[in-house]
């Protein structure tokens, strides 16, 4: 695989074309995230019942990396507890920013984003939805601006 194919894996292209959980949740608060680098934005809706993420959706305009990341994120955290989702956030953050081995078993579907760390300018794209979700789980409704 070339470096570029490593970044744009088929899974990412697929989620970009047909994002999962795309839309709004009328009974959940809308939390926005912005990427000032490119002007992209994402809105995340999470419905938490008794500490469990019962439903999650997102909408917004963005590049393939940010859209696929949001889409895959929703499939990963749906049904998880808030604590588990926060743990996934940390794992994801490490995956796209830190050197070292990636354990595919721990990361599951997230592993397709391992290529992102070679593209510092694209780390923000991949992490925007995750930062927004984190804020939503902490009941912060101010817009997130990714700065890493």
């Amino acid at each position, binding site marked *: 695989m070339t470096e*570029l194919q490593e970044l744009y894996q088929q899974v990412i*292209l697929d989620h970009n074309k047909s994002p999962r959980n795309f839309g709004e949740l009328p009974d959940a608060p809308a939390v926005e995230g912005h990427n000032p680098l490119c*002007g*992209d934005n994402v809105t995340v809706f999470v419905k938490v019942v008794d500490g469990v993420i019962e439903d999650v959706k997102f909408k917004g305009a*963005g590049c393939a*990396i940010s859209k696929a990341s949001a889409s895959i994120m929703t499939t990963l955290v749906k049904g998880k507890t808030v604590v588990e989702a926060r743990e996934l956030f940390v794992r994801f953050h490490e995956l796209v920013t830190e050197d070292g081995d990636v354990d595919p078993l721990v990361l599951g579907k997230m592993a397709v984003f391992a290529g992102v760390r070679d593209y510092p300018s694209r780390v923000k*794209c991949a992490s925007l939805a995750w930062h927004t979700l984190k804020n939503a789980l902490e009941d912060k409704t101010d817009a997130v601006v990714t700065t890493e």
Partner: protein
Amino acid sequence: MTSSAAADNGATGGTQISSGFDIDAVRADFPILSRTVHGKPLVYLDNAATAQKPRAVIDAINEYYREYNSNIHRGVHHLSEKATSLYEGARKRAARFINAADSCEIVFLRGTTEAVNLVCSSVGQSIKAGDEIIISHMEHHSNIVPWQMLCNRTGAVLRVIPINDDAEMDVADFEALLGPKTRFVSLVHVSNSLGTINPVKQVIDLAHAQGVPVLIDGAQALPHMQVDVQALDCDFYTCSGHKTFGPMGIGFLYGKKQWLEELPPYHGGGDMIKYVSFDKTEYNDPPFKFEAGTPNVSGVIGLAAAMDYMEKIGHDNIQAHEHDLLVYATEQLSAIKGLRIIGTARNKASVVSFVLDDVHSHDIGTFVDHEGVAIRVGHHCTQPVMQRFGVPATSRASFAFYNTKQEVDTLAQALHKVIDIFGA
């Protein structure tokens, strides 16, 4: 562009390439152009962000640090005298470059951003609530935010000249905004994200008829066209040296002598004073009044070398070659299915901004980079332009006189690959 409209707005020169223009020789003057990126020859089409530097500029900086490095103006030793004469020589060079009447009208500073902030801060001291400042919808953030900050501080009002679907402003719209409350007009000469060349001469004349001073943001004009500040009769004009084939972190503000004498200083410190005591400080004459502290001497010397270099290549040659590139790139890119050019002004510099159906500009940027092609993606520090055209971002290819039609072809081929992968 039509040459009459061009001449009217500060650009002069015909469209014939003289026999002296040898593109291979020109490219050989820029060491970076022979490198590869991701194993492919570099195709540098991000000139509006910053231009590459010819060897003459790199050598001039190098020579300064090897031979003359010392602080300027107050030294009595040999090195300081030499550095001072190079620095002040560069000021005369810059004055000739834009045909300023007097070299004291050139204030060296970091670039257009600092130039706008200087004018905004000094002019701003006499701005009051209810006063109006006019800018256009296609300004770079550096010609929006300082004025907004001033308005927030004083209660003045920012008025914005609209742009049409071709990214052109209508002088009549400007006239309609110009009124008894207008205190200042600040307008971009050439738009960095759209390529539009604005009718600055008409704007200046109209504003002057009402006694209103005008600043022209020349960041994107000076790399492409010959500018004559006396013919334009602008009150202020800005230069970002790094976009004009000079070093990073240096540029200048041109200000009419009468303004520089009248306006209060910007930064306080060394060199901008004649006499300091705790009771009273007497400011220096322009331009020194606006150059507090140790300046970027090597930058100024490098910038002078860049202006020498551009004039050696010749403005006529630059304009003719870039015009050919713009026409060719517009044809080649428009032929790509699903590609839409943003910025279709009749009078345009060699900048092509575009969007592709279903492919985000960020993805385009990363893909073409792997073919060795450097373009800019995003909002180009002109978010109101993106809002005006209803796009989150564009991809932008911006050409300099060292670019070639083959490089346009490489970009077009790379875009075809992007479309194949994202399977529109």
